[in-house]
């Protein structure tokens, strides 16, 4: 086995192996568990760095393992699209691991938690590196199974109920996806992801069947991507601990759904063929409706995590909208938002976790003057929130710029109104939080305050949101720098739309 074919397996192994070892570690082996977690995350980051460099310089990385007789292979393949998603999950996994170590200090079942946590990241990286639809489906299902124990980690009745809803939704979605995948194989004779789509050359195919398959695939993936009306599980799942929420909303689950839709449109159907089939228009409308609906729902929530959850419902659909508009500029906007939404949303969830852990604050109505007590946390939250609104020069501004410009370029001017409405709603549900946090007088006592000496909270809880807030600023301000997410999204789109 050569280096080129084993690199992808090594990247998977850097989270899989520590995860499996951690399962068998006794609770009190804190140092070893932390070392394994951190070593895995750091080594993965280095290996992904090597992969980025190689892919940028035209290196091919592929691993093909026989899965079933008849040419059904498990294929791992690194292309520009997968690199974008792998990099996002790897960087944010490292940050989330630090945060989780601090967050779960002293809590029960930590070995179980970190074991599933590592499995969850393995599955996400597998989803990103999948070279065909069947490999994608396998890791997609593994993601479902490894996330469920994290959602019910607290073992409360509310958590169990949220877990049950999550499982019902995602297993049903997986089943629908499986039906679509099998039907697709029957029509196309291939599962492979290819540039311009495996279906693009099939001129004599049954268009109604292909449209129906597209609907099945989108319905299956739309569950995790939280497209309406399939989003019901996501706001319920916010009962999970903050690091899990961060994983669900920024790194793994919703991203896997959105990334799947990108794969289906770009590499299964091909953007041009999908557009000629007439399926991208309805998909764009569905994404737009989700954007507005999610924002409207967020507006009414008093629970901070619930508001953020509905915000995710809205924001993840920007990715789908960018792809469904059909055009190189909008595609850049959609792809870059895969990263931008991740860094912004993870910042917000980290901060929400800090407020809950340090002060016992869960609701916006209890956040009066919290900026005075926790200025660094709220400064990070402010950057994340302003980024979500699309205030320049933060990450969200770059996304909205490319989506708007792409819509104009593709002649879909109505999208501008959706973006404007969404930005207005984002401002309406984020700015009041900043107002109460910074300008209202704090209460005499917080619901459940914990002290960390002169610091506002533990370092392990404070550093991750600070880092991701800086990333939110950096990916926006330095958008045109080499190897920025924007430049990488441009690189992908150049390949996708090359003549």
């Amino acid at each position, binding site marked *: 086995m050569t280096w080129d074919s084993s690199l992808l397996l090594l990247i998977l192994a850097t989270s899989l192996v520590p995860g499996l070892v951690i399962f068998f570690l006794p609770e009190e082996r804190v140092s070893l568990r932390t070392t394994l977690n951190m070593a895995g995350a750091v080594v993965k980051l280095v290996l992904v760095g090597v992969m980025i460099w190689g892919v940028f310089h035209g290196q091919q990385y592929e691993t093909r393992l026989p899965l079933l007789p008849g040419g059904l292979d498990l294929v791992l393949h690194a292309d520009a699209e997968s690199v974008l998603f792998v990099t996002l999950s790897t960087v944010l996994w490292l940050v989330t691991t630090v945060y989780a170590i601090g967050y779960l200090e002293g809590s029960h079942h930590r070995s179980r938690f970190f074991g599933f946590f590592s499995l969850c990241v393995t599955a996400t990286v597998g989803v990103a590196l999948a070279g065909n639809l069947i490999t994608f489906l396998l890791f997609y299902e593994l993601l479902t199974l490894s996330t469920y124990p994290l959602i019910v980690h607290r073992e409360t009745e509310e958590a169990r109920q949220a877990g049950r*809803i999550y499982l*019902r*939704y995602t297993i*049903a979605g997986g089943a*629908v996806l499986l039906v679509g995948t099998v039907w697709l194989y029957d029509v196309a004779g291939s599962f492979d992801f290819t540039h311009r789509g495996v279906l693009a050359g099939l001129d004599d195919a049954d*268009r*109604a069947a292909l*449209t*129906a398959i*597209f*609907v*099945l695939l*989108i*319905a299956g993936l*739309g*569950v995790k991507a939280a*497209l309406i*009306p*399939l*989003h*019901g599980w996501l706001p*319920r799942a916010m009962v999970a601990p903050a690091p899990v929420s961060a994983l669900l909303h920024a790194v793994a689950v919703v991203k896997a759904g959105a990334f799947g839709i990108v794969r289906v449109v770009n590499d299964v159907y091909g953007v041009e063929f999908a557009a000629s*089939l*007439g*399926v991208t228009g*309805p998909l764009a409308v569905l994404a737009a409706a989700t954007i507005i609906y999610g924002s*409207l*729902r967020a*507006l*009414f929530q008093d629970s901070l995590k619930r508001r953020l959850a509905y915000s995710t419902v809205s924001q993840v659909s920007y990715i789908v909208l960018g792809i469904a508009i059909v055009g190189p500029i909008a595609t850049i906007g959609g792809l870059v938002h895969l990263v931008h939404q991740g860094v912004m949303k993870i910042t917000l969830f980290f901060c929400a976790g800090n407020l809950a852990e340090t002060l016992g604050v869960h609701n916006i109505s209890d956040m009066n003057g919290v900026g005075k007590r926790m200025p660094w946390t709220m400064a990070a939250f402010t950057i994340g929130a*302003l980024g979500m*609104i*699309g*205030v*320049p*020069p933060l990450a969200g*501004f*770059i996304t*909205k*710029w490319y989506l*708007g*410009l792409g819509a*104009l*370029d593709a002649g879909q001017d109505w999208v*501008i109104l959706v973006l*404007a409405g969404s*930005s*207005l709603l984002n*401002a309406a549900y984020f*700015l009041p939080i900043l*107002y109460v946090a*910074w*300008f209202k007088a704090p209460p005499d006592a917080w619901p459940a305050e914990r002290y960390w000496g002169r610091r506002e909270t533990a370092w392990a809880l404070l550093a991750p949101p600070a880092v991701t807030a800086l990333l939110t600023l950096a990916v926006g*301000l*330095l*958008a*045109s*720098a*080499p190897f*920025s997410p924007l430049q990488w999204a441009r690189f992908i789109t150049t390949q996708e739309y090359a003549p």
Partner: protein
Amino acid sequence: MNAYLSALLLLSVPGLPLLLAFPALRSRLPRPCHLALLPAVILLAVPAAFSIEVPWLLFGSGLGIDAASRWLLAMSVVLWAVAATLLQAPSGQAVDKRLTVFFLLTMATHLGAILATDLVGFFAFAALLGYGFYGLLVAAGDETARRAGRVYLVFMVVADLVLFEALLIAAATTGDLHFEAAHHALALSQEGAPASLWYVSMVLVGFALKVGIWPLHFWLPLAFRAARPAVALLLGGVPVAIALLGIVRFLPLGEITLPDLGAGIQWLGLTAAIYGTVVGLMQSHPRTLLAYATMVVTSLFITLLGSGLEWPLLGAALQGTAPLFIMTLGFTVAALVAGSMLADKVTTQSALLVTARRVGVLLLALSPLMTVILTRPSGGGERLFAESGLVALWPWWMLCTVLLAFRWLYLLLRRQGETMSAPASMIPPGDFWPILERWFSQSNHWFMSMGLQLLPRWRSSGLAAAGRLLQVRVWQKALDAGERALQGWSLAVALLLLLGLAIALLSA
């Protein structure tokens, strides 16, 4: 000048205030708010015009200084230095930390906007300025300040959205968004392209919201009244000035001809002047009157702008002379606010303030004449300028400003020595709908008492019903019910599949 030195100097003008906004970095420095202006002062001392390009910044942005930005930078340094001095509480007690942070953040964005050489860079600085100034208005303020802040923020968010759409149109027209290149490209695309008219309209609406031009001026009186003196002093020279500069920076004045829109804008300017004078004279608080006086002075600019859109020669002249007008406006407002402090009794430096009051009154009263002199074009367009609405009407305009100046002086003298009463809002606190409803109801009543049926028979109850529909709770209940139904995955998946299959059948 050495390229690295140029870059260092230009980047440090907004960069140093930004760095000093971090409490840890300024805590050991004496007078950090004054110190933050040091790079700007050095830049003013360098006589050459130069600029830098930062290709990795946003979509490729730049900073630079030319004759126009030099004037504005000079005004800004003076205003920020005075405001920084006044920011210190008179009793010597420590200034609220948040106020200092917002002060430095707003300073950074303001100086950055002046030096920006492209549309996106300017927009970014101007948008951040809005948020920073909101903080300045609200930090350590009372309920009136918070209300003024809320109204200001709503206006700024809407303005930024409108300007963002305008920027998208500009970017769709040209790949190069540096001011001159963008102006040229937009002017070339004008013929037969509705996008150009959309662009100009959106730029005007966006910046009108930020300037506080009638009828989009509601934030201005509230902000003048609620802001602490050090902040009110900046109102003319910072948010209003940057918005006026934005109009000049964004519009390809001198390269486009939009006669109908230009004529309309001239009428708008005239109406704003009349409205500002009438309502301003009715004010009983000197600071609120200043908001309307500002509106009257900016209406001069708006009228000039209308002429510039109608006649490109005047538009080209306005590009060059606008900074002088903006600078005068900034100093006028600052002097008048400083003069108002005599009545507010917030400081004991009365000799300086008396001088400021005199200068302010003079500047306000003479502003139409000064505008005519400062903005007179040279090298073409003099005849057109002489025939333009502003020049023809400037004595009337001056009557307005003189009346306002006297009224302000009268109010100031009357209040001097009085105990300052708790400020009341221009618009009473409460919802927007009841105000609108009351307004419609009274208008109806008035028209009917005159025997006129100009308005349709609007029933205020109908309006109230419409208002109720907009209330959060009605929608919240409806959405909650839908959400509960969708908690069942089977219904959700079935719904989407049915929808998708319907599309599949339709498209087959």
